[in-house]
């Protein structure tokens, strides 16, 4: 029941944010907000695997780009397909790849799993780069409609709304996991996988759930991207930014709680956007990198951890 209340509160907040954006009426605010929301989804998705079970996934871009490129394909095949359907399909595909990755890398622990995910990103990028149908290395144009369906106004508002809804879904899921037996099982795997096995925790199944969910949510976050950028090529779809930010934001916010990636995404995403406008468009990765190093040294539990320590 508490989960339902939490979801309703999230929905309320999301609606309020959207209403505020409409009232404000600046398309720049929507474009910027979309990026922050996208990182909330991406960071939370990464955290379900990386934070809760302790399996560090460096292959964020693989899942993200699978979502994005599935939209490119769908857009070419069935241009009239509504975006929410594309998001579900993109997320489903990435989830399946996540499940497959989990299955293939079951025996890999710690850093070896991370290396395998890094390799996955390279493999997927190579495949996409050589796939002519989606534009190959040249990239593909995906023209977005001028007007948003259902809600009217600019199309970016519709993209923003979709991302907002995804945030609600992803955050409600993450919090539900934290407070369930599943979350305890994940924590057991993170602490000592061998001991978890000995205690009768079905480690294999839990890891598959984590890799599947995490990959699926990353794919969902990537699905609207072609409509957002309108031109997608492998270099931008597989950009290092996505991977660095999706890892840095939960680490900075705190990996132990659903709130961590949100705080991290708002803080780092907001700061990056501000610096992009005021200083340089290339400074954003630097910000994430420097902050990540600073937090790993000074506050390894992230911002959430700082508050939890004070409370105790």
């Amino acid at each position, binding site marked *: 029941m508490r989960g339902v209340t939490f979801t309703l509160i999230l929905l309320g907040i999301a609606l309020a944010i959207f209403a505020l954006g409409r009232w404000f009426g600046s398309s720049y605010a929507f474009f910027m907000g979309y990026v922050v929301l996208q990182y909330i989804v991406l960071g939370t998705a990464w955290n379900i695997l990386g934070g809760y079970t302790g399996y560090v996934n460096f292959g964020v871009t693989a899942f993200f780009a699978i979502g994005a490129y599935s939209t490119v394909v769908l857009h070419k095949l069935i241009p009239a397909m509504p975006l929410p359907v594309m998001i579900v399909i993109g997320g489903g595909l990435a989830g399946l790849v996540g499940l497959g990755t989990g299955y293939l890398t079951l025996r890999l622990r710690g850093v070896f799993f991370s290396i395998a995910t890094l390799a996955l990103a390279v493999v997927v990028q190579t495949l996409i780069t050589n796939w002519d149908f989606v534009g190959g290395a040249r990239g593909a144009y995906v023209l977005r409609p001028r007007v948003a369906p259902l809600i009217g106004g600019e199309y970016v508002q519709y993209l923003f709304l979709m991302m907002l809804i995804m945030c609600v879904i992803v955050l409600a899921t993450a919090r539900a996991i934290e407070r369930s037996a599943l979350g305890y099982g994940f*924590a057991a795997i993170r*602490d000592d996988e061998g001991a*978890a096995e000995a*205690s*009768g925790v079905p480690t294999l199944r839990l890891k598959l759930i984590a890799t599947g969910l995490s990959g699926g949510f990353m794919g969902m976050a990537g699905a609207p991207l072609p409509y957002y950028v309108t031109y997608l090529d492998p270099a931008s779809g597989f950009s290092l930014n996505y991977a660095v930010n999706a890892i840095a934001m939960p680490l900075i916010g705190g990996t132990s709680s659903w709130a961590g990636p949100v705080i991290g995404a708002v803080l780092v995403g907001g700061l990056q956007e501000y610096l992009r406008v005021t200083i340089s468009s290339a400074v954003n990765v630097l910000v994430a990198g420097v902050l990540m190093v600073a937090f790993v040294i000074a506050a390894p539990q992230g911002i959430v951890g700082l508050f939890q320590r004070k409370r105790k």
Partner: protein
Amino acid sequence: MASSLTIGHIDAGYGAVHVLEDVSLNVGAGETVALLGTNGNGKSTLMKSIMGMVRPSKGSIKAVIDGKEHELIGRSTEEIVDLGIGFVPEGRRLFPKLTVTENLLLGAFRPKARSEINRNLDFCLETFPRLKERAGQLAGSMSGGEQQMLALARALMSAPRILLIDEPSVGLAPLLVSRTIDKIKELKEGYNLSVLMAEQNFTQAIRIADRGYVIVHGKIAFEGASAEALNNNELIREFYLGA
């Protein structure tokens, strides 16, 4: 109804490395059986084979739980735990960054154990009053003796009928070793368990064991039908007592 365990002629190892060769052993209903051997003789591998963490290449492992016989080879670890076999791994292997209570709750992760989780938790905290005091503390911050108690309690949370304990004395001071061994005896009687305990500490182990096996280089070298028989054995003198 008590439960028993019968291992028949198993071979097991890791890849090309053969560790166990033709090992047979049984734990009768309500017995405490000691598995004695120094480092590197295959005690832990035998424990892991029973728990489904290492798959034997031949032989059989049968458990009779409350009158029903089950073949364990081919089952996953969680299924084996679910049948009613608890395992205390070597070196305790707690979840150091989780609290004592969380560690205990994780011992009852399987659906079957989850339905009785509150009763089992009360039982455990009653048996180990020290853990009750430390319920909110992180497991990794406790002393070795307390951690061993928690490891035992966690295994009991799955309400096992057969308990496997791998080297409970590792890293403990002599006084704590003898306390831990006493506790195992108390638990065995209180919970009506059958116990298989791998141990290097010969003198402590045979205090509570009904019978014992000596394992040398992956083979059962001696089977002692009683604690006295073990005490008077030549092999034991040679390996443990240095005489």
